C-alpha cells in the first residue's frame, strides 16, 4: 500500500529511523509542531519497548482517513515474550518521574486512540492513532 511504511526495529538506530519516519508523515499530514513532537515521542517509546523487551519487531506508520477525518496510525508489532499482566502495565506507573520514559500510559496520553493485544510467548501488538483536528 502506498500510504503505509515500515521500519524494522533491530538496533537502537532503528528507533531514530522510526521517529524520523513518523515525524515526516506527521508533518506532511499537516500536524502542528507540538503534535509532531507528541507523535514522535509516542513512536520513540513504542520502538524503544520493542528494542528493549522483545529484541526485534516492526513499526508501521499509516495515514488513515475515516468518515472524512484524517489521522496517523502507528502499529508496533513484535513476537517477543508478551505481557502477562496488562492490567499492571497500563497502571500509572511511576516510569516518567523515574526518568524511564513515558511508559504505555504515557503513550496513551500522547495519542488519541490506543489498543493493545498481547499473548505470553507469542508477542504484542499495539495500535495508536492521532487524529488531525
Amino acid at each position, binding site marked *: 500500500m502506498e500510504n503505509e511504511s515500515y521500519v524494522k526495529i533491530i538496533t537502537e538506530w532503528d528507533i*531514530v529511523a522510526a521517529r*524520523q519516519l513518523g*515525524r515526516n508523515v506527521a508533518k506532511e499530514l499537516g500536524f502542528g509542531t507540538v503534535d509532531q513532537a507528541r507523535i514522535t515521542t509516542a513512536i*520513540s517509546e513504542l520502538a524503544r519497548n520493542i528494542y528493549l523487551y522483545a529484541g526485534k519487531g516492526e513499526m508501521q506508520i499509516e495515514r488513515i482517513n475515516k468518515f472524512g477525518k484524517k489521522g496517523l496510525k502507528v502499529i508496533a508489532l513484535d513476537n517477543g515474550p508478551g505481557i502477562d499482566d*496488562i*492490567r499492571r502495565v497500563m497502571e500509572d506507573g*511511576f516510569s516518567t*518521574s523515574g*526518568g524511564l*520514559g513515558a511508559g504505555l500510559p504515557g503513550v496513551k496520553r500522547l495519542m488519541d486512540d490506543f489498543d493493545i493485544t498481547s499473548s505470553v510467548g507469542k508477542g504484542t501488538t499495539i495500535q495508536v492513532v492521532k487524529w488531525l483536528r
Partner: protein
Amino acid sequence: MDFKDSLESDYREILRSYLKESNEIALYRGQKFSRESIKQQISPEEIISLHCRVLQDLFPDIQKEVLSSFDFLLEVMMDYGLAYQEHQSLRDRQLEIKSEIQIAANVQETLLETKIPQVKHLDIGAISVPAKQINGDYHHFVQDEESISIAIADVIGKGIPAALCMSMIKYAMDSLPESRRNPHHVLENLNRVVENNVDPSMFITMFYGVYDTIKHIFTYASAGHEPGFYYNSSTDIFEDIIAKGLVLGVDQDVQYHQYEKQIEAGDMIVLLSDGVTESRTEEGFMERSVITDLIREYRDLPAQEMVEKIYRNYERAQDFQIRDDFTLIILRREV
C-alpha cells in the same frame, strides 16, 4: 563529572549538533537528555534558563530582546515547576499509601482465610479475586462431622470500608457456632449485628447454606444475594437457586425463609457474587448464560480448575479491567 556538572556542556553540544544538521538523531539525544534531567530532579524552569545561557553562548550576537524574553518564559514556567515538584511528593505519598493498602490486604487475607473442605464424594472449587487491592467479597467454609456450611457475602461498596465490614462478618460468624446448622438463624443473627454496628449507608448481601454430607440435602437462605445455580446432571439443565430475603442491615427484625434441595450424583451447586454476572463488557452486560455455558464447557474438569478457567475467561472478556470483586464457588456431588 556527574550529570549536573556536565548539564550545560551536554546540552550545548546536542543543541549545536541539532542546529547544524537538524536531524532526528539530535532530537532523540535531546529526549534522552530530558529523561536524565528528570531523573536528576532538574525542574523545567532550570531547563529554560539553561537553554537561554546556551543560546547566548552559541550566538553572541543574539538580539537582546530575545534573550530577555527568556526571563519572561522562565517566570511563566515557575508554576509548572511547582506542579512538577508536587508531583514528586504526591508520587511518594501514593507509594506509601499503596504499600499500606497492600499490608491491609495481606492482613485481610490472613483474617478471612478459609480452607476448602475435603469430603468424600464431594468436589469443591472456590476462587475470589478483588477488583482493587482489597476484597469486599467474603466466602467461608466450615466443615463439621456430618455437614459443611458455606457462606458467601458481598458488601455494597468496595475497597477499604468493605474490608472493615467483612472482618466484622467473620467475627460475628465465629461467635455463633450453635445455630450454624440453621441458615435462617445465621442470617437473622448476622442481620442484627450488621444493623447495630454498621453505618446505615452500608448493606451486605449474603447467602448461607449447609450441605448435609450424609443425606446430600442442601439447606440454604439468602439475604438479597445474587442467586446461584443448581445444575441437574440428569437433565443437563441449570436452574437458579432462588431464595428471597432482605439484605443485611436494613431492618432489625427480618425473618429469613429457609429452603432445601436434594442433590443427586453428578449435580452441581454454583454460588457466586454479582461481580461474576454483572460484568460489563464492551458489548454491554454479560448474561448469566455466559457463566452457565462456561461451566458446561469445563464440566469434566476438577471443580478448582473449573473456577480458575472461568475466571481467566472472564478477565479476558473484561479487557483486564475488573470492576467488581469476583467470587465463584462450585460444589459437585461425585457419587
